């Protein structure tokens, strides 16, 4: 293709990428380098129904002048990235000097907001993703084996968790695991422990979130694998039957190798999705025991009276970097496969 034609062909998508991908990311990175101007404060007397008090107040007019002069705020460089709300190198240093054991060191580092969120996010990603792939695969095998008449309804029910809005799904489950809900009360009766609460214990909350994540995402893997199963080469399958392979050996040597590229695809999508886990944390009110990177961004923007744009932007950039790191191995693998085939 001549260069000119190629350019004309690709220009619209290139422009769209620039407009919808590069520009927003660029602006987020830029935003993360600035913080609010130093506040000009005055002391004023405030009176109301409960009497008078002297309080400090922001001088709005003076602040306006500062903002007009420098709309982006004060340049802070990478300061926001390194502060104790994010990478917190200073605090890690302090913890290092004062902790005596590795366990103590890790415990304290994992208590820092970003690391706390990161460890949950990673745990969620690396537990939910493989479970989703395995569970989705077995659901697909199961559904594929059932006769045609009831296949339709079964597929529909299998897809339900994905159709239900994440927030609704998590709320429904949240009510069920309440200590007076069906699951919560059931577990209390089962373990004969009236103080057992799925919501209170961090471990149980994590498990609940994982289970929810698997429940919610398995249909996606199921649909992809089910579609893939329709194309498993019949000849090879029958070869294996004649060769003497058991049902499991046929799955292992014929079905799985055939579905492997699909599994890569599902893994890629799931890694990306799960790394951005957010709704279940809100739905389950799990912020006390489990926060994710996305949740940090949300709480920076919505938690306080004034949104902390720099913090949110810095966490966003770190999350983006995390996604890139996470996907690199899969992408390298895909690239190698591609080259080998070409």
């Amino acid at each position, binding site marked *: 293709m001549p260069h000119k034609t190629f350019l004309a062909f690709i220009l619209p998508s290139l422009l769209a990428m620039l407009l919808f991908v590069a520009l927003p990311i660029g602006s987020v990175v830029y935003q993360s380098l600035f913080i609010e101007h130093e506040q000009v404060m005055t002391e004023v007397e405030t009176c109301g129904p409960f009497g008078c008090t002297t309080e400090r107040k922001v001088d*709005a007019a003076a602040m306006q002048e500062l903002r007009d002069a420098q709309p982006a705020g004060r340049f802070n460089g990478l300061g926001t990235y390194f502060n104790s709300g994010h990478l917190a190198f200073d605090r890690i240093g302090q913890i290092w000097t004062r902790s005596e054991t590795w366990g103590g060191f890790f415990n304290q580092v994992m208590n820092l907001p970003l690391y706390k969120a990161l460890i949950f996010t990673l745990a969620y990603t690396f537990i939910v993703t493989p479970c989703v792939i395995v569970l989705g695969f077995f659901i697909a095998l199961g559904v594929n084996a059932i006769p045609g008449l009831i296949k339709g309804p079964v597929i529909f029910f299998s897809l339900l968790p994905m159709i239900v809005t994440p927030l609704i799904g998590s709320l429904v489950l949240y009510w069920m695991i309440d200590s007076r809900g069906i699951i919560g009360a059931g577990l209390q009766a089962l373990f004969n422990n009236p103080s057992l609460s799925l919501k209170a214990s961090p471990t149980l909350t994590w498990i609940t979130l994982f289970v929810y994540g698997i429940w919610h995402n398995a249909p996606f893997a199921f649909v992809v694998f089910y579609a893939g199963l329709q194309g498993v080469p019949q000849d090879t399958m029958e070869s294996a039957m004649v060769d003497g392979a058991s049902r499991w050996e046929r799955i292992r040597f014929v079905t799985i190798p055939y579905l492997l590229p699909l599994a890569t695809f599902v893994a890629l999508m799931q890694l990306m999705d799960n790394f951005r886990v957010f709704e279940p944390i809100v739905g389950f009110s799990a912020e006390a025991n489990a926060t994710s990177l996305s949740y940090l961004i949300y709480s920076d923007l919505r938690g306080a*009276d*004034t949104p902390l744009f720099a913090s949110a932007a810095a966490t966003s950039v770190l999350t983006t970097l995390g996604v890139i790191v996470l996907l690199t191995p899969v992408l390298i693998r895909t690239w190698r496969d591609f080259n080998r085939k070409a």
Partner: protein
Amino acid sequence: MTKMLLSTTAVLIGLAGAASAQCAIEGDGSVRILANDFQALHAVVSRAATCAGEGVEVTTNETTEHKDIQVAALSTSPAAYTIAVVANGSLVPLLNEGLVQPMDDLVAKYGQNLQDSQLIRVDGKIMAIAFMANSQMLHYRADLLDQNGIAVPATYEDVIAAAKTLEEKGVMKTPLYASFKPGWDLGEEFINMYMGSGEPFFEDGTAKPAIDNDAGVAALEMMKALKDNMGPDVMTYNSNEAQPYWENSEVAIMTGWGSRTAAFIDENGATPEIAKETKIAAMPSWGGHDIPATTLWWDGFALAKNISDEDAAASFQAMMYALSPDLVADPETAGLAAWLVNGYTPTPASEGVFANMKAGAKPYPMTPYMGMLHTALGDNLAEFMQGQETAEKALEDTVAAYTTAATEAGFIK
């Protein structure tokens, strides 16, 4: 949307017109109200909406997300809303950004019905008009306390002793309830408790936090002691979810918001026998201090800055009509809150608020960085409450989180 608003407005005119005097506004203008969404506010906002008529247009937006949109909505010129219904906490961001205007002239001209206590003066200028007070108060089951020989608790130490008695006598397993859900609720509980110590939140004249002290630790330990007498799901308790526990007789003593009390003592509700025995008292004090461990809140309205004088005048008049004594003439509306408007006589639901005021409770600080401390508290105390770290560590984490945020926002160098 507009159509729906107009039709609701029309219905409201019909209802209100029959009961009381018509709303009459001098001059033309547009009234645009942004408010939180709960019953008492709805009564006010819907009265203001009846002022729609010749030359006067009224639109309202009642949403629980009001805090998140108010700054952006009032920053435009003209502002998207002329009236922002606020509380002492949520007025601060508007003041910080200079988005509201003084109302002294309008008060002089149209504010005959206002009482002096309703005027919120900042630096001598009237920046908001309060119309109701709110605070947490102690709800208790008079029957259960009587039967077990427990006096109405005046201190948190009493509350814990009462809980222990109820537990020992096998009346209830988890007799206490407080909103300990991490986030705003948990932060508010700590602020209330710490208020009871009388110590300041910040070092004098700076934004540096001062909670990392013995009073802070003691406040946390008290909360932990309370938590040990609450149900297994305590870390998800919030004020929305209290009612089923109460009506199910699983809880005998609860700290809860005055704005929700009406539902608990409603003898036409789901469990009249429990409602009948539900009584209200001032919040307990603790640690030998005499101050009720609570903050006082007011709800009121402020006038947007970026609006025309006509709109400002029309909006103010509409709110004045809404807040006229007619508002509290209806006993049902009067029962919804502790009103600060002229002509209101306290009802049982508001007793607690006035008892708190009388006992010397302080208002929630209107300091610009209080919200940040509140957020940091809400995010960092849960681990202590669940026994995963010490009170000192929890406060240290809170201070670190607050300092980071306040530095970024320019309050701390």
